[in-house]
């Protein structure tokens, strides 16, 4: 251990991906025996930072000093070897094995190592000891899969402890935990801290950061903005630092006259996912859904469009109640769902532009069951020309197009479905700036023609720039509602962090 207690010293860490600077000179210091919170919006660079520390990515420049040794890069084995452990959002455990087997996975104890004979007795005893140390009432011989998520996470922590980790990184560890489980986790974290372990705690829940962290570093746009002792600052300060900059006017928003309610959702519930979601959408309105990744926005859209089932709730389209059991029902009602993952859910990459554009109710383009290939191509050509799609022809495979042009094919497909309600999930993700502006203009055009648009955006600027009204979600609930005029990044952030009174 170094004299001043500093265990981890990240200096000037930089990582560029094609077209994006993911990390831009990040500095972070963490001491042994402290819980260090890292806060930032989606895309601020937190995950990239973790990947550098665990060796999943190699930095372009900068250094990682750990336990007195300076590294320019790490690989996963070395990171583990020098004592950096990481608890990921998705657990890396094997449900069919026992608790003890999981704890010692890859680092088993042997009776006779050359004969590959395990010492189960010793492993179980040692596991029991570790579990008792952390105050966990779990049997080492229980099958892991029978435990709750919270306990499984504790087993991951036991693994890290057993490997003598000096630094444990926790990436959104409480996102799938109940309140009680989260409480247990914080107790265990406090114990780890008392043993001199450093913890990097990444959480979107700022109240957790406030209550449990000793120091906090705020990241924004790939940079570390400021580090400070938590007791000297408030949650409001963190939010202020997280959102930082002012919005530049890169959103060509044109408000449209608003008409009647065309989509009305009441008390939509899906167990463990959505809780009493109610809202209205008017003709001519752009309604933004803000919130953090995993807040339930995509899940709301999927329930409304029949992509996922819902348990209870009422949906009215144009004043008529509709029962939506499958995607076709919502399409028939006039709802279009432009999914977040174009490649996985929106397009058939190995098919042509014309095929993809006309896939919804393709039978429209024919007579007596026979399709008119000419009409399909002509229809596709027309709508693609309107959207200025760049392609060598309607027979071009969609998989060969750029992200922006692929998104245009998705939009073309739904324009041709005669939808009146368009739900865009992250409409501009992964497309370049020019194409983004075109997508915004198309949204303007849709509402000008009397359609209603819902946009789900993780970029706060985008939702504030384009939406007439914003709903904020947190853990499957709507926690805030504001007009474009009322909205500030701070208000959205408060609501998105689960503070209901958005003031």
């Amino acid at each position, binding site marked *: 251990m170094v004299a001043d207690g500093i265990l981890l010293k990240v200096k000037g860490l930089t990582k560029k991906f094609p077209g994006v600077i993911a990390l831009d000179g990040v500095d972070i210091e963490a001491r042994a025996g402290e819980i260090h919170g890292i806060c930032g919006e989606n895309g601020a660079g937190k995950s990239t930072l973790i990947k550098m520390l665990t060796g999943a990515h190699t930095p372009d420049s900068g250094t990682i000093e750990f336990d007195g040794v300076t590294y320019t890069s790490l690989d996963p084995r070395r990171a583990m070897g020098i004592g950096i452990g990481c608890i990921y959002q998705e657990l890396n455990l094997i449900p069919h094995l026992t608790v003890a087997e999981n704890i010692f996975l890859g680092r088993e104890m042997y009776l006779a190592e050359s004969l590959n004979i395990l010492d189960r007795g010793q492993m179980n005893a040692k596991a029991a000891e570790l579990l008792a140390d952390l105050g966990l009432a779990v049997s080492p011989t229980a099958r892991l899969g029978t435990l709750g998520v919270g306990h499984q996470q504790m087993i991951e922590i036991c693994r890290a402890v057993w490997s003598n980790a000096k630094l444990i990184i926790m990436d959104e560890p409480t996102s799938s935990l109940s309140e009680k489980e989260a409480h247990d986790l914080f107790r265990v974290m406090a114990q780890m801290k008392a043993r001199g372990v450093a913890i990097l705690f990444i959480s979107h829940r700022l109240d957790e950061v406030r209550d449990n962290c000793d120091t906090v570093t705020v990241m924004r746009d790939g940079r570390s903005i400021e580090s400070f002792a938590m007791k000297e600052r408030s949650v409001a300060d963190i939010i202020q630092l997280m959102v930082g900059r002012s919005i530049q006017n890169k959103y*060509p928003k044109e408000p449209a006259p608003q008409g009647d309610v065309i989509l009305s959702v009441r008390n939509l519930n899906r167990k463990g996912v959505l809780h009493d979601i109610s809202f209205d959408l008017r003709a001519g309105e752009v309604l933004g859904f803000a919130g953090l990744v995993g807040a339930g926005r995509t899940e709301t859209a999927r329930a409304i*469009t029949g*992509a996922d089932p819902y348990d209870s709730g009422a949906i009215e389209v144009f004043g008529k109640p509709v029962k939506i059991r*499958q*995607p*076709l029902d919502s*399409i*028939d009602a006039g709802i279009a*769902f432009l*999914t977040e993952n174009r490649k*996985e*859910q*929106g*397009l*058939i*990459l*190995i*098919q042509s532009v014309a*095929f993809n554009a006309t*896939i*919804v*109710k*393709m*039978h429209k383009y*024919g007579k007596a*069951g*026979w*399709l008119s*290939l000419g009409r399909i191509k002509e229809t596709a050509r027309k709508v693609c020309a309107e959207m*200025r799609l*760049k*392609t*060598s022809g309607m*027979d*071009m*495979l969609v*998989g*060969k*197009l*750029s992200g*922006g042009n692929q998104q245009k094919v998705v939009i073309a*497909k739904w324009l041709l*479905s005669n939808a009146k309600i368009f739900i865009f999930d992250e409409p501009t993700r992964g497309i370049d700036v*020019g*194409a983004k*502006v*075109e997508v915004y*203009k198309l949204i303007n055009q849709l509402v000008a023609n009397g359609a209603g648009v819902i946009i789900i955006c993780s970029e706060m600027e985008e939702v504030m720039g384009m939406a007439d009204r914003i709903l904020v979600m947190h853990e499957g609930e709507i926690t805030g509602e504001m007009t474009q005029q009322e909205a500030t990044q701070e208000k959205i952030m408060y609501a998105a962090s689960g503070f209901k009174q958005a003031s």
Partner: protein
Amino acid sequence: MSNDVLTNNGKLPAEKAVGKSAAMTEKLYQLGVLLSLLLLCAVMTALSPRFLTMDNLMNVASQAAVSAIVSIGMFLAILTAGIDLSVGSVLALSAMMMGIASDRWGLGPYASMLVCLGSGALLGLVNGLLLTKLRLPHPFISTLGMQKMARGIALFVTAAAPISMFPDEIQYLGNNSIGQVPVSFILVAILYVGMYFFLTRTSTGRYIYAVGGNKEAARLSGIKVNSILNLVYTISGLTAALAGLVLAGRVNAVYPLAGLDYETDAIAAVIIGGASFFGGVGSIANTIIGVLLIAVLRNGLNLLNVDSAFQTFAIGAVIVVAVAVDVLRQNVMKSGR
């Protein structure tokens, strides 16, 4: 601004080039399969004077007919990223049912043929439902189960005895010719042309490609994926039964071990014909070329009196080569992306 966007997009030329090269690779492969078939015919002609005679060619056509019909269903299954391992057994059981209907129940020839086709369609539908309703993880498993079950029933219903001596109507498809052209070959031609139009000119046909290309995108586009899959496996059962009908006519008998291993020949034909195991890609027109390639290879080796052990080996080698070429083609397409 809009003009900026228009001119700023410098990606167009590159995309165009890539698109072309991928399409070229695809076309080259198809051309390659056709050329291989022609080359094989040329070699056989050179090696055996009997190969290029009307008699022999018609013999190839009639022998290929059964496999060609089975391959239609297999092609559809593979097009949806699935497989139908039960076609050989479904062929046998459907034909046995026809034999029982005609011989034991005393049904007329047309009613018996309906029993045959109905049995095949029903077995195929069960395959589909096992996949879509019972949600077995992959059609490999459901159709493997059906393969064993159908074969078992086929053996059980007559205590493994064959049934022979059918009325002329039943024999017609498998045993007659119009001029020198076997009726079965004409049937194959009609089926393939019909299937070609079904797949390219009806929305249901296009949806089969859509489901094979991306199941989730198809579902979210309002396509009833499960109905499409049920239909595909029903058609596969139906074509297997029709093949059984042709086979029964040709040999004037039905027997419980008919169609043994036909699924592997059908898979080979479909894959040689350029369909992708990952689904969504392939043309029925190429499937018939794959069928003919295997049939000519078999026939030629027979004419040359080559040991049947080597024939089996040769078919296997052709499959491996065809799939290896397919993988290379996929890699070329991917690297172009």
